[in-house]
């Protein structure tokens, strides 16, 4: 207490004074100090820290192995290209020798020839090993089709892509503007009899994705019962899949309607799957590149790795990190799937290489747009039903030969190139009840060599060889997974509803969210949303859903082990003999040309003794030979589509009817 008070009693003031009660004001003041700090200890949990860093990380690094399964069954010509350019000469002199049919060998699926023992190359190398008896492939061979070759020019370009958008296409030609957005078009109607009851089946041009008991809605069908089927007012259950013999399950479905009661309009009648009164949507996913060029990755022979056919496997890693922060897929959701996109490269060999110079010279009279290319531009499509009204049939590319029958429409994704930044991808079905996409058809790219595709223009005596290669360019990479369980929440009382959620009781009118994932704010008005949770990396739910991969150096590492198949567009499964008649000596050149055909089998001179008067050996190339007719036999192969000349059979051919030849002693 700082202030002091002196209180003088009244009686001390005067005689008459008496003491009175006095009041002394007393201040009560309070001051305080903060309690002293105690020692603080806290534990940093390394696992939690790891999980935190992993959750916050959006950077991905991709590496892996590519196993290319390819062969050169579609080679340009059965020839050996020889460089006879003089030293120090600027004028190339490149010629070729025909490898006759009986010298063509198939070595681990590759067509080619064994190099003669004494070649220029062997002499240049000055040893006994180079070239001698080496197996050489016809062009295009190893050096253009495998993932790894030693000419320094990559045969394919690798990219990382993500689904960012959708598009609509017209799968079946029609005049009503009906397209994929209207549902899956119908191309065929048929009848199935079950227990003596007739059911109708319909065929779709691509996989329908239906299962037994699924509900479907029919659009633009013809009701022959004067609306007795109530087509527009009801759904139909799928009775079974496939035709009467259970063939083609993925493209034929049966409903319980008498075939005579219903008809369809080609390309106009469509179906949509219905789940809980919600119709599916059908569309094509589009991909955008996250990496652009070959600088973004490194590719190399995978040590001693070879596949079953002794072709080298390729190892690769992306030097460029892929950051997915803020990226959304075509449904406005954070990315759960990326794609490894592999695109055939036209510049797969040095421009000045012997091979390129040779083929460019052959193509010099072709239109300027194509004459300097080795490969045709890529076209994209799907493995659709074989139907003359169906577009995007990848196996029918080029099957519109003049006067051909049938001719297939040539509507495809065109002008595709390895430099593109946007690619069309698969056809998917999306149903808002399921909140998930189902892939119905994978995309394929088709390529062929310019030489083969235009052979008739190059040499009028030859037919085009319009069968090309097809491959699936886009392989999904799962980086996250959506939960199997569909969440529901009301914005009045549910926190952390993600912004990609969908309204449950009304149509979605909001535009798709973009950028970094946000959550919905609480509202006074009730709005119920549905969504699937994006499972955290490392979390595996009860059904095994979820992803787990290494997190290291501040990035997620995803290993890709992929088989890359280069298929034939239409492998010919049918084999037959054809005969061509030649008159000698007038058609001597034609005779020699035909003998050089890879499909040449044998020739014979009918009744040789009566024509030539002798059974002694006769030189058929003698210009003084008596006019003689020679029948030349060829093995011909044919497939499902009219694609011109085929030189080699598909794997489906029975080889037992063909002669086999052993390697000679020289090799």
């Amino acid at each position: 207490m700082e202030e002091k008070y002196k209180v003088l009693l009244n009686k001390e003031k005067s005689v008459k004074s008496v003491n009175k009660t006095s009041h002394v004001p007393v201040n009560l003041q309070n001051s305080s100090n903060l309690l002293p700090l105690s020692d603080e200890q806290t534990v940093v949990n390394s696992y939690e820290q790891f999980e935190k860093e992993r959750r916050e990380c959006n950077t991905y690094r991709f590496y892996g192995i590519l196993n290319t399964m390819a062969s050169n069954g579609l080679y340009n010509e059965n020839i050996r290209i020889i460089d006879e350019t003089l030293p120090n000469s600027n004028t190339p002199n490149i010629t070729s020798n025909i490898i006759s049919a009986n010298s063509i060998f198939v070595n681990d699926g590759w067509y080619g020839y064994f190099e003669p023992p004494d070649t220029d190359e062997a002499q240049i190398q000055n040893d006994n090993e180079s070239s001698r008896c080496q197996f050489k492939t016809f062009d295009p061979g190893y050096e253009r089709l495998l993932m790894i070759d030693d000419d320094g020019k990559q045969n394919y370009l690798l990219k990382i892509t993500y689904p960012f958008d959708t598009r609509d296409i017209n799968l079946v030609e029609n005049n009503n503007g009906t397209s994929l957005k209207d549902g899956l078009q119908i191309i065929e109607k048929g009848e199935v009899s079950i227990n003596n009851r007739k059911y109708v089946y319909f065929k779709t041009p691509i996989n329908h994705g239906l299962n037994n008991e699924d509900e479907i809605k029919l659009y633009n069908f013809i009701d022959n019962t004067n609306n007795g089927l109530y087509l527009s007012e009801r759904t139909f259950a799928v009775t079974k899949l496939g035709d009467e013999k259970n063939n083609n399950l993925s493209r034929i479905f049966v409903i319980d309607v008498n075939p005579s009661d219903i008809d369809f309009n080609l390309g106009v009648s469509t179906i949509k799957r219905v789940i809980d009164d919600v119709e599916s949507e059908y569309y094509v996913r589009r991909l955008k590149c996250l990496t652009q060029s070959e600088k973004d990755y490194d590719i190399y022979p995978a040590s001693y790795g070879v596949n079953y056919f002794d072709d080298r496997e390729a190892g690769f890693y992306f030097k460029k990190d892929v950051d997915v922060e803020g990226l959304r897929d075509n449904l406005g959701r954070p990315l759960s799937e990326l794609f490894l996109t592999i695109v055939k490269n036209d510049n797969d060999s040095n421009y000045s290489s012997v091979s390129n110079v040779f083929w460019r010279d052959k193509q010099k009279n072709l239109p300027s747009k194509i004459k300097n290319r080795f490969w045709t531009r890529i076209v994209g499509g799907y493995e659709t039903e074989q139907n003359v009204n169906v577009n995007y049939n990848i196996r029918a590319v080029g099957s519109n030969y003049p006067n051909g029958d049938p001719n297939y429409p040539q509507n495809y994704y065109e002008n595709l190139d390895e430099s593109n930044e946007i690619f069309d991808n698969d056809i998917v079905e999306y149903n808002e009840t399921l909140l998930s996409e189902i892939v119905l058809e994978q995309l394929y790219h088709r390529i062929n060599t310019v030489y083969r595709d235009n052979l008739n223009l190059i040499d009028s005596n030859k037919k085009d060889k319009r069968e090309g290669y097809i491959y699936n360019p886009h392989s999904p990479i799962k980086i996250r997974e959506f939960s199997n369980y569909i969440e529901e929440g009301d914005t009045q009382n549910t926190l952390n509803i993600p912004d990609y959620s969908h309204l449950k009781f009304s149509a979605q009118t909001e535009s798709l969210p973009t950028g970094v994932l946000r959550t919905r704010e609480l509202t006074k008005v009730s709005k119920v949303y549905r969504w699937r949770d994006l499972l955290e990396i490392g979390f595996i739910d009860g059904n095994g859903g979820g992803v787990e991969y290494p997190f290291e150096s501040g990035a997620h590492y995803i290993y890709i082990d992929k088989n890359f198949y280069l298929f034939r567009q239409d492998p010919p499964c049918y084999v037959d003999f054809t005969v061509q008649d030649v008159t000698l000596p007038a058609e001597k050149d034609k005779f020699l040309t035909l003998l050089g055909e890879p499909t040449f089998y044998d020739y014979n001179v009918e009744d040789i003794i009566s024509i030539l008067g002798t059974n002694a050996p006769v030189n058929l190339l003698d210009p003084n030979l008596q006019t003689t007719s020679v029948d030349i036999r060829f093995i011909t192969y044919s497939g499902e589509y009219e694609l011109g000349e085929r030189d080699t059979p598909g794997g489906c051919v029975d080889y037992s009817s063909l002669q086999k030849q052993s390697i000679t002693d020289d090799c």
Partner: protein
Amino acid sequence: MTVNKYKIPIRDINISGSSINLNLNLDFSPVDNTELIKTKLIDDEKEKSINPIIDYKKVRFFPSDNNWDIIRKFKINMNFFTEKSNGYFYSNPPSYNGASAYGDIGFRFDDLFCRTDRLMSSFIRFNYYDSTDSTSNLIYSTNIYTQILNDQKNDYGFVLSKNECPVSFILGDSTLEPDTVHEGFYFYWFQDLVDNSPNKEYVVYLEVTYQNAESGQSTLHYSRKTVNYNTINFNQINDNRLLKVVLKNDDGIYKYRFEPNSQQTAFNGGPGGINLNPQSGLSDLPYLTFWQIEPNIGN
């Protein structure tokens, strides 16, 4: 003490139920900093205590020539001292930028013909350091083992005699030159360090030794000949002990090249052993020639 003052007019006195609002103010003072500690200090200190993430991602660097053009393969020549009656001499004439023979370092023809373990297990070691001073750290090394390839064989594929068989090595690109040895051809290093270096160039220094499994000796080699080993001043030639190597991110392509000093280069007739852009002469291949720095006295 501040209070609110109220005036109550007399006319209101008769009105029953008058009331006056009395404020009870309470000023809080914190007793301690627990809340601050819990909500901020600990979080901040925890964050500080956690090491930043170091990016250990390595990428492959391709060797390139003086113009930063990638080379497909290069040759390494190893040159050794041999003892003669009047002293030690390089086994090849000084003007010859080639390799010594295996016979010069103690191998016999049988070793070459049979590829004995002691021959095949001998190797060159490339040690890379992060600086040239005494505090340098060894950051990367690679071994290149004995090669009996075309250079070591005659036209008929037989191995050369011990006095003709060169101690040389050819390293090549695994894709472009599949028949060559690839170990030691590439340099693998941290992408992050190179990308964040000035001009995206990161410098390391190479030291070369030869590990002879026949003699058990490890010899140091410089990319510069010692003209007279008897008067070697090690302080003077230390600059040549290490060969500068630059790693570079060249517009997305990762490359490295040897950058010899004026004593180490053989380019344009330089006195050294490094020539990445050979115009003519012994070989069309870029080559690195290294000379043993001191005789194996007592060998």
